[in-house]
């Protein structure tokens, strides 16, 4: 059983759910349409696992593929070389259409509740369906104005011009995931136009694309609002189950201009658009969870020529393009473009002609496959939806949203880099994880820590202190805490350690009251303990110990050794390992010094040896 969003499977459609053994697994919510659908045996039960499996499978497949790639490394190298020489001759051009589910409480044209995000119980199939979503005769769309807000935030974040007046068109095609026989969209009169997206090396744009510049800018042609389709599940060879819960969910489609010239940049664009949409709270779920899907338009032309003279939205001189639909991971975007680029170049070099067609891509494949040619293209017969008045957006609303916009990811990362002293790479990692929760945790810990250890002598020294503590906190939040969560296979939601606790640990570390080793031990201890009970009362001390208590209980407080004691310990270890001493002294293997430091920390009593001091002592003894 797998879930499918492709519209191409040429299968025998049997009436959904006429299977006699079918029973609903969950009780339906008191929704009139759900009841009605149920009374007509038109509901499906969709256990959660169905939705989870594809992701896991996907990750597994990815891992497998990577392994295989490493194995035939030699081959990869040689093919890379040939393709590189071909790329000197041929230039790739890519435009992307990204569909993202908006973060709203209800559907686009009905008050049925929007799909519950992952983690929550999604509810049973066909339980969040209004009469219009099931396309019952005599029903009409009712535009839900609240869905406009996240859409507008997306448009503002992508620097689009919000249109005062936009409209709704019907796009017709028959498929069982489309109850009305058409999708309501804004293809001809979108609510936002002419935006742009700026990307740099940190976003994954390769140096060749940057061409010496700090960043490149990709034009956004338009953003439109539209309805999502129903979910269909293949049951056996000839039966599909249709779940209308997703039908009519609000989507935005972001269409870029064909300004992209490498597969890596294409993936970077998708990743960045996702980050921006999440950052401004326009969307909740990311690509890996099916909240985002991309179609890519790919063409190649000989460098220095104008291709077949094709053009798109003012960008001309392009080769004939093909469209690859329904890519649902960043990797798929990149790989599909690589495969399609190489295919097109091969066809052209063999004297062939590229057909304007729609192609598909499955994960792990080496080639795109033809879905349908131009002659098989659906004529969508776009027409205005006469039931829906034009959408009029006041400039005051746009202005208000602009002033209340959350910080964009780029700004957050820049802030982390310049204000808190993190590397851009760490800033990006921190920002992209856990829906911004981790950045918030970082900022709180960092400000608590600075408040306690900062001297605030002058502006300059404060800045230095802030960047120093920032770096320390960043390291601990990302690597130490991150490592512990990975070890315990826990998510950030279950981190248990509070910003206050981490601050306490780092204060002790900063003041040299504990060693880094002890600090890590305390953190690990806290991660494993039950979280403090939430409530109006101060958590009692015996449910969750404080950092101080843990230090005392573990006898972890640093009791500095005297110079003499350091030397005694060092000599003891050096005497026991003459080979190592020889390696340092005679072979000049300075790195081995750290081995001695490690031994000192280990053999010394807990919380007594500071690595920095130990190193100084060892080095001195080695020299002497």
């Amino acid at each position, binding site marked *: 059983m797998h879930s499918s969003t492709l519209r191409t499977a040429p299968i*025998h*459609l049997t009436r959904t759910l006429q299977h006699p053994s079918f029973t609903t697994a969950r009780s339906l919510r008191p929704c009139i349409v759900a009841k009605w659908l149920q009374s007509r045996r038109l509901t499906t039960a969709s256990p959660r696992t169905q939705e989870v499996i594809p992701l896991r499978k996907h990750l597994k497949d990815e891992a497998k593929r990577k392994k295989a790639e490493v194995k035939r490394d030699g081959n990869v190298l040689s093919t890379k070389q040939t393709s590189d020489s071909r790329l000197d001759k041929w230039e790739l051009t890519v435009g992307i259409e990204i569909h993202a589910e908006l973060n709203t409480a209800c559907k686009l044209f009905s008050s049925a509740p929007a799909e519950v995000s992952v983690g929550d119980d999604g509810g049973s199939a066909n339980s969040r369906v209004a009469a219009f979503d099931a396309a019952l005769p*005599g029903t009409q769309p009712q535009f839900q104005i609240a869905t406009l807000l996240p859409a507008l935030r997306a448009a503002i974040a992508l620097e689009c011009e919000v249109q005062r007046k936009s409209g709704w068109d019907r796009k017709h095609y028959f498929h069982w995931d489309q109850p009305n026989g058409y999708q309501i969209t804004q293809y001809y009169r979108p609510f936002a136009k002419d935006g742009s997206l700026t990307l740099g090396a940190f976003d994954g744009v390769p140096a060749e694309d940057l061409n010496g510049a700090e960043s490149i800018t990709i034009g956004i042609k338009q953003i439109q609002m539209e309805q999502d389709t129903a979910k269909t599940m293949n049951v056996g060879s000839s039966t599909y189950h249709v779940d209308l819960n997703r039908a009519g969910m609000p989507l935005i489609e972001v269409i870029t201009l064909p300004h992209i010239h490498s597969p890596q940049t294409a993936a970077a664009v998708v990743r960045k658009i996702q980050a921006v949409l999440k950052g401004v709270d326009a969307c909740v779920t990311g690509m890996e969870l099916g909240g985002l899907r991309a179609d890519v338009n790919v063409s190649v032309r000989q460098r220095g020529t104008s291709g077949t003279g094709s053009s798109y939205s003012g960008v001309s001189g392009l080769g004939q393009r093909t469209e690859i639909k329904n890519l649902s991971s960043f990797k798929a975007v990149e790989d599909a473009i690589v495969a399609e680029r190489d295919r097109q170049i091969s066809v052209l070099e063999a004297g062939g002609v590229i057909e304007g067609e729609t192609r598909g891509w499955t994960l792990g494949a080496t080639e795109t496959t033809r879905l349908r040619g131009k002659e098989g293209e659906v004529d969508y017969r776009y027409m205005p939806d006469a039931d829906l008045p034009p959408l009029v957006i006041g400039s005051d609303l746009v202005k208000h949203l602009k002033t209340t916009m959350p910080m964009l990811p780029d700004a957050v990362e820049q802030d982390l880099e310049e204000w808190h002293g993190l590397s851009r790479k760490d800033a990006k990692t921190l920002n992209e994880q856990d829906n911004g929760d981790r950045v918030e945790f970082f900022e709180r810990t960092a400000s608590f820590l600075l408040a306690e250890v900062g001297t605030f002598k002058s502006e300059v020294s404060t800045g230095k202190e802030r960047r120093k503590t920032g770096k320390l906190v960043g390291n601990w939040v990302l690597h130490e805490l991150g490592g512990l969560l990975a070890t315990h296979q826990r998510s950030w939601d279950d981190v248990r350690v509070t910003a206050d606790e981490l601050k306490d640990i780092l204060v002790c570390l900063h003041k040299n009251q504990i060693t880094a080793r002890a600090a890590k031990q305390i953190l690990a201890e806290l991660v494993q303990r039950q979280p403090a009970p939430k409530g109006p009362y101060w958590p009692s001390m015996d449910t969750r110990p404080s950092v101080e208590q843990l230090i005392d209980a573990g006898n972890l407080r640093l009791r500095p050794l005297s110079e003499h004691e350091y030397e005694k310990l060092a000599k003891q270890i050096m005497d026991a390992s003459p080979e190592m001493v020889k390696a340092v002294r005679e072979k000049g293997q300075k790195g081995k010094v750290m081995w001695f430091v490690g031994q000192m920390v280990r053999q010394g009593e807990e919380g007594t040896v500071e690595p920095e001091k130990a190193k100084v002592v060892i080095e001195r003894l080695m020299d002497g």
Partner: protein
Amino acid sequence: MAIVLEIFFVSLSRSDLPGHSGGRDRDLTSASAQHFISKVKNVMLSARFCWRNASRSCQVYRKSHSISQQLNAIVHNGRPDPGKSADASGFLSGKTVAVKDNIVTKDLPTTAASKILTDYIPPFDATVVKLLQQHGAIISAKTNLDEFGMGSHSQHSHAGAVLSPFSKNGVPLSPGGSSGGSAVSVATGQCWAALGTDTGGSVRLPAAYTGIVGFKPSYGLLSRWGVIQYANSLDTVGILARSVADTKHLYGCINAYDQQDPTSLSATVRERLGRKGADAKRLRIGVPLEYNIDELSPVVRATYLRTLNALQNAGHTLQPVSLPTTQPALSAYYVLAPAEASSNLAKYDGIRYGYRTPGSDASAKNNLPLYASTRGEGFGEEVQRRILLGAYTLSSEAIDNYFIQAQKVRRLVQRDFDSVFAQQHPLLERQAEIPSDEGGVDVLLTPTAPTLPPTIKEVKQQSPVESYMNDVFTVPASLAGLPAISVPVRIIGREGDGLEETDVHDVGMQLIGQFGDDELVLQAAEVVVQ
């Protein structure tokens, strides 16, 4: 299909656009127009008019239940439940109202006379049905119609053709369509009044053909929530009743804003509609020259002229007006309505409700597209014809020549009307070139149909295009969303020479008002009936 469109569609040129109309196009009609004006004047000057009390003949036809079954006006009988329809204080308390079967009802199957909706029982009531019930009305029956409202004679129904109670040479006449079942139910006294739907004349035409009143209010006044779409930019709920007073009474109960219908006019817009204290004592009545077509039958023309004359004698003013886009309007209608129909009927795939073909419907073996079997078997011939026509006119190769052009014609039709009415269109920006009050008219009076109803035999011999011609007088008001009413005017004296006793003895006269001027149209209707 291409042939139909070639014959049918009057293509637009620049000269048809405002500012370019002038010489040529008007000259074509000027001869007949002059002739028509002189005739109107003659009648106006002619001798006094004998007003015979046009008593409704419907009592005569109030026959037994079995006869109404023979006429096939009803597809489902209501379940009158006296306990339930309790509210004796309601404005419609105890009154029976039949509802056209393309308006959904929770308690009764709703099929729109289509096989594709076989046994469909909707899970909700249409807003107009709810309002009727709230006012104490009893939904007595669901009435027969042309499948999905597509037809002018109520002959294209999966439940079988509707027959008029009137006949000629023993052959039943056409009851008109598409609300033929509602009209026959009212005319034969099966119910006090009925709801129909009017997309291009579907309430007015059957009212005219069965000698009753049929009212199509302004677009957006009566809720369409629960009205099965045919062409949703034109669809309007309408009322069929035996008198203007009953029509008004029912209209007052269901005329309300409905937030479930996105095209329902809001309370603030409603306040701006019409004129305060509309007065039908001294009407300025427009007589559109373009409605004097060759196809106008002598009996209709005679009754029309007599009616005009009588109105003038009663103190009203007559004023010849020109609506040059009347003919292209019909062509535009038969492009727009099928286009919208092809979209609105795309939802019937047999998956969630209604009829479904036995066996697979997406078989690559048969080399048929998805749902081809279900839709091929579930839709009748006329519905299929219009879906195909609409799918073609929306296709990328044809949309510019048909759908877009028809939209332009539609705007011209609206402008035509705006230029003749004294009252400003309440939803349009005020324009400078609006005629002064003296120049405009309050209502337009036209025949509802060019002829008396044909027999169903004659209907069968008509080509689709010929039957579309029937709607030439009703379509313009639909395209402009204007209120329009058809009222019966008794045929008297020599006008009715050759009419059999069993034949219909009324001619439908249509009054059209400015958008939102529904009250005045109803008042004027009372004047005409008197």
